[in-house]
């Protein structure tokens, strides 16, 4: 039994980590006033590019960096679309998700000549425990940055009242660009953790809605980093629970159990909204 609990705790940490990174990205972006529906795609981009780079260079560390860069690059696309072209952010994010998932599937064929999944690469090995710790440390750091530093105040102000930021002599659009690029970098890191941390390959659909679970965590966590992280741990717990129970209790419907984390996110979403308030200018082009 104690072995089972240890497994559950370890799995919860592992399963929460990619969602935490994505959710932190979601917090930064939404605090600056841009809804990032593209988190899912940025995770896929990070996961795929990390594997590709690790494959080419035989260095999982470089793969990790490349995954972060890929997420940031996709973030830049959304940032420009949201600030310069004032697009509907939901529509643009949906487009980005299709581009990234399709691009990775296309890349699997063109680069590896292997539809569906990449070949196996060397992964980060036990260094991925560092990334798990880093997720929690980053959450705390981001909490501090957002609430205790001038830069954090500016980011929050451009999500609450961008005109006030202009009055202060600053450019809210530039702040939004920084925030969304950073958001993409975080999501890319989360994706890279999935592909070369937890596993050692990229397969189609491997992000499996985690970008959206992260968005639910952002709302559940009231748009603050520590709250969102706590929500991610809850969702990660249900994902882990589903794994652990599958081997233990034969009569549980194994396939339906996999829906558990998504149901948890749905319940959380219904449970808190109405009681929480999004940043006032979240999703409103300026």
């Amino acid at each position, binding site marked *: 039994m104690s072995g089972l609990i240890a497994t559950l705790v370890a799995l919860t940490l592992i399963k929460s980590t990619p969602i935490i990174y994505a959710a932190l990205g979601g917090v930064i972006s939404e605090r600056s006033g841009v809804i990032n529906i593209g988190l899912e795609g940025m995770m896929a981009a990070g996961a795929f590019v990390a594997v590709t780079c690790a494959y080419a260079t035989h260095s999982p560390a470089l793969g990790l960096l490349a995954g972060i860069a890929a997420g940031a690059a996709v973030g830049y696309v959304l940032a420009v679309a949201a600030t310069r072209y004032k697009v509907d952010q939901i529509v643009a994010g949906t487009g980005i998700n299709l581009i990234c998932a*399709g691009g990775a599937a296309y890349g699997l064929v*063109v680069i590896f000549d292997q539809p569906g999944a990449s070949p196996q690469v060397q992964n980060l090995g036990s260094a991925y425990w560092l990334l798990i710790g880093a997720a929690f440390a980053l959450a705390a750091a981001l909490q501090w940055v957002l609430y205790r530093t001038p830069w954090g105040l500016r980011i929050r102000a451009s999500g609450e009242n961008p005109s006030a930021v202009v009055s202060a002599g600053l450019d809210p659009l530039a702040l939004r660009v920084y925030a969304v690029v950073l958001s993409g970098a975080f999501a890319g890191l989360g994706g890279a953790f999935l592909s070369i941390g937890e596993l050692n390959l990229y397969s189609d659909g491997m992000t499996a809605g985690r970008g959206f679970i992260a968005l639910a965590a952002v709302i559940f966590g009231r748009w603050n980093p520590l709250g969102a992280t706590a929500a991610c741990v809850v969702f990660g717990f249900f994902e882990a629970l589903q794994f652990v129970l599958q081997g233990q209790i034969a009569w549980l419907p194994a396939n339906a159990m996999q829906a558990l984390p998504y149901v948890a996110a*749905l319940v959380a979403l219904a449970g808190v909204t109405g009681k929480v308030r999004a940043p006032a200018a979240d999703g409103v082009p300026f």
Partner: protein
Amino acid sequence: MTRLSRWFAGPLGAIVLLVVLMSLAMIVAGTSPVDGFTALLVGALGGRNEIGETLVAATALLFPALGIALAFRAGLFNIGAEGQLLVGGLCAGALGNVLTLPGPLGITLMLLAGFIGGGAWGAIAGWMKARFGANEIIATLMLNFVAAYVALELVSGPLKGPLAAGAETAWLEPKYWLPTLLPGTRLSIALLVALALALFLQWVLARTVFGYDLRASGEAPEAARRSGINIARLTWIALTLSGAIAGLGGATIVTGELHRFNTQLSPGYGFTAIAVALVGDLQPLWICLAAFGFGMLESGGLAMQASAQVPKDAIHVIEGLIILVLAARRYVATRVEGGPV
């Protein structure tokens, strides 16, 4: 010059972008664009069977696209059409396995079951949005995964056909198959149902009080609320209908095309349909045209992949880019026309 740039911000730009990007995707995959486009066009329109497959794909896209457009007109973003298709198909397939009725009546009931099943799936998100204010984008997407796993559970166990190899129901009796529209192809009269539905929705949106309320709550929610429209009620009705239309589409795939339910029912139609709805400018009749275009890409894409070795996934990248460009289009168009920035 202004006229030219306006065209480029519109349909012409989308087509030019499509051709340029497709060419690029073909070159990267090691095929010349001439060969690639030839394979694509021959695969989409090269003969009776090809045209049939293009229209099959167009039909499968048209239902969820109409549903998505309906919700979108009410200001609601339904990205759960994939799950709604699946639930609709599952309800139709499961019912078809137990029915003992004359064919036409059975088919009607199966389509109705798909409509109700998809509607119920959409209603969950609608209820969550109306009752709790839960974000419908996240809710509808989460429900896709729930639908996929629940459907897999059911057709791996209780609903699995006795002779089925994979996760699928038993074959439907031929009397429960939708009649073929184009002999010698898989195209069923589902296409006519979809087109009729598009006409009907065009009329509903443009000419009825319900359609007016729907558009008002999408375009000016505050004004709509003050004029006495019950936004919460409209929200769940819109999301339920949106899901029901997609579910009906799932049922037509089962009765018209696969002749049984299979968890692989949709290769992402629910997501491509978002692009279809947006390219069709959320107008049901234009969506029919867009569905035909994307149907060509779907069926031609398979041929392109087989004969020219260009991965079909390139098409999804391009769909995404089209969505992204269309999202920016309105802004570019106003700027070109000298409107407010």
